[in-house]
């Protein structure tokens, strides 16, 4: 059974048609990478799945139930968690308080403040520091930890490597690898194509709000993804 099922979804930013007639299915436990150029509609799509962007038309189903009209905070208690672009931590609050906020949905599960800190050891010394004073890597770890605290069955990661040093990116993905094996369904947006192809089992390439290419990372040649990414074929057809 598919965990997430999106049917002919249309999303608008004012006059901009960001996502056009998009359909996508995620199987339970699958790790899918969403790639595409800036403005392809990746972030908008994740926000629509999380519930912070209202679709113009189309439907989103999660675990077999239609959630298109379910408000954002209720989707968290259903098991959907988004690590938003730019982390969006509560800067005035401490790392621990940010993490504890993740438990507001009341979903039972294995995640605790101690377990998050065990997973992201760089947070151990910063537990009582205000989130606004953290380094980029620490902020990202806190944002992911906050999402994990709601014990999600579907985790949406929006550019977790943005603004981080290569070492910090490695350590974030290192910490995520165990999670990816544990059966959590993950949909991630990643600019680094090589990394996206490495961590995900399937890659979905968006171009101007449409799925330009979709396939298993094992069988898909990287050149074809690059072509779809920049819309090279697309332009040739138009010309």
């Amino acid at each position, binding site marked *: 059974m598919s965990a997430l099922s999106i049917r002919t979804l249309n999303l608008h930013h004012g006059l901009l048609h960001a996502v056009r007639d998009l359909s996508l299915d995620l199987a339970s436990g699958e790790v899918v990478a969403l790639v595409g150029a800036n403005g392809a509609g990746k972030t908008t799509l994740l926000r629509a799945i*999380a*519930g*912070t962007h209202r679709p113009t038309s189309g439907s989103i189903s999660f675990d077999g139930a239609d959630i298109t009209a379910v*408000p*954002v*905070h209720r989707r*968290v*208690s259903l098991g959907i*968690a*988004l690590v*938003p672009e730019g982390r*969006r931590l*509560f*800067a*005035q*609050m401490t790392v621990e*308080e940010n993490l*504890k*906020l*993740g*438990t*507001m*949905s*009341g979903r039972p599960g294995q995640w605790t403040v101690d377990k998050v800190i065990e997973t992201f050891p760089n947070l151990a010394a910063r537990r009582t520091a205000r989130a606004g004073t953290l380094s980029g890597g620490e902020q990202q770890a806190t944002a992911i930890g*906050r*999402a994990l605290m*709601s014990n999600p069955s579907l985790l949406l990661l929006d550019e977790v490597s943005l603004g981080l040093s290569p070492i910090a990116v490695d350590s974030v993905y290192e910490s995520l690898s165990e999670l990816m094996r544990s059966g959590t369904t993950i949909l991630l947006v990643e600019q680094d194509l090589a990394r996206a192809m490495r961590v995900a089992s399937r890659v979905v390439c968006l171009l101007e709000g449409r799925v330009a290419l979709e396939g298993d990372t094992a069988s898909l040649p990287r050149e074809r993804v690059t072509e779809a990414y920049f819309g090279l074929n697309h332009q040739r057809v138009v010309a």
Partner: protein
Amino acid sequence: MMNSLIQGILLGGYYALIASGLTFMFSVMRIINLAHGSLAVVAAYALFALAKNLGVSPFTGLLIVLPLMAIAGFLLQRFVLDRSLRAGALVPILATFGLAIVLDNTLFEIFGANTTSLAPFVGSLSYDSIELPGGIYVGVLAVYIFATAVVVLVGLQLLLSFTPIGRAIRATSEDPDTAGLVGINARLMTATAAAIALVTVGIAGAALGMRGTFDAYSGGAQLLFAFEAAVIGGAGSVWGTLLGGIVLALAQSFGAQISPLGFLIAGHAVFFLVLFVRLLLPRLAERMRRQA
């Protein structure tokens, strides 16, 4: 001198009590509630009606009035503040200003122009006093009100700092969209915060009614004192609010020593002084730093 000081500090407790709800609402929801004073008078009249018609003591009456104030706060947020906030940050100020006028005149319609008080219903509490060393007498009620103010202010701070609901309220106040992403119902949280604020308004209304007289139009003066205490104390911190109330009350009681008219004038003068210092000092400091 010593007497004025002590009486002033105790009066400051009352101002801090009435300011607590105003600062709570401002720091958490970024809303200046101009109906604050009128709502306190509504609570005082509700206690008065219960005492006069049903013989309910104002202290027992609080058990009825405070839950009603909480419900009123919840509905106020849902149906007035939420909606007006969508139209811009200044619209809630206008909306609560209008609400204050409606409340004042409704009270005038129901209760008429006579001043009234809860003092007759609290036995000897309104004139009981204790003698301090040095022949200074302080009112028992004033001490109770001061203690209540401290309890309310510390309670609000503890609630915000250490409880899950307090964390959720702070998160919602910092970033309502992201609060939704961690599973917080942002609208429910702001309405809850408004309910909490109005419970403190209810307590302040009881204090207002017991310590003196009030009428349908007393709300404006209460709002003014609460506002001045909040600004002097630098809205947003517990001890700041208490200190603001005390500074305002001290200015008033020393002003009254100079002239009977000095009570209000000295209070307003200190308020303006603090306001100007607040506005000018950062600019002066900036200029001096540039010259150095």
